[in-house]
């Protein structure tokens, strides 16, 4: 059983398009996250939701919009894609939002390539 899953695994698209990445966790966790890993492997948090409520909203272009329909799902929609959006996007989840040293469990990643 996959704990944190993402679809698609690979996404190749043209500049200006709109695309979505989906994430699901079956761990019963309350908190989910989106991270971006750039070509130099640097990881940066983008968003976090706790029980469907946005709790972390980093300085990210407003072309990026997360949506959490329920606490097991967190999707990322990106409008008007730009070359600089090319990266690997990781979804993660944790039992709660940082309390008691909760470990964040990462999904397999979605490699987005914008042409």
């Amino acid at each position, binding site marked *: 059983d996959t704990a944190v899953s993402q679809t698609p695994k690979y996404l190749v698209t043209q500049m200006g398009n709109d695309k979505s990445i989906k994430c699901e966790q079956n761990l019963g966790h309350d*908190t989910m*996250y989106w991270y971006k890993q750039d070509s*130099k*492997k*640097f*990881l*940066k*948090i983008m968003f*976090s939701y*706790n029980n469907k409520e946005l*709790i*972390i909203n980093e300085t990210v272009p407003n072309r990026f919009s997360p949506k959490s329909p329920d606490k097991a799902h967190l999707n990322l929609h990106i409008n008007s894609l730009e070359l600089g959006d090319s990266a690997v996007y*990781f979804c*993660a989840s*944790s039992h*709660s*939002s*940082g*309390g*008691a*040293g*909760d*470990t*964040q*469990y*990462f*999904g*397999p*990643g979605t490699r987005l390539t914008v042409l």
Partner: protein
Amino acid sequence: ELKVEQNPLFLSMQEGKNYTIYCNYSTTSDRLYWYRQDPGKSLESLFVLLSNGAVKQEGRLMASLDTKARLSTLHITAAVHDLSATYFCAALKGWYGKLIFGQGTELSVKP
């Protein structure tokens, strides 16, 4: 602003040797995490260090935390090829699970 720095960024080791990866963070953080990432793969949790003086060991890896020095170390004992990967440390900022990651240390273990 919390910043996390690892060194070295690249480490080429011989099998059987010992080495240490260092993780410094700039302001107070109560939690320090270590993750492993294989090429093209996800991040795998290795250790969570919760308090000053915490030490955790798993196989050939041992992690420690000194909150006064704002330093965590990941010690590798008698390296084997299977340990080749990129290792990240991350410090927790605030109470909402915001992890600030270091740059990663790319470890290559050669025979």
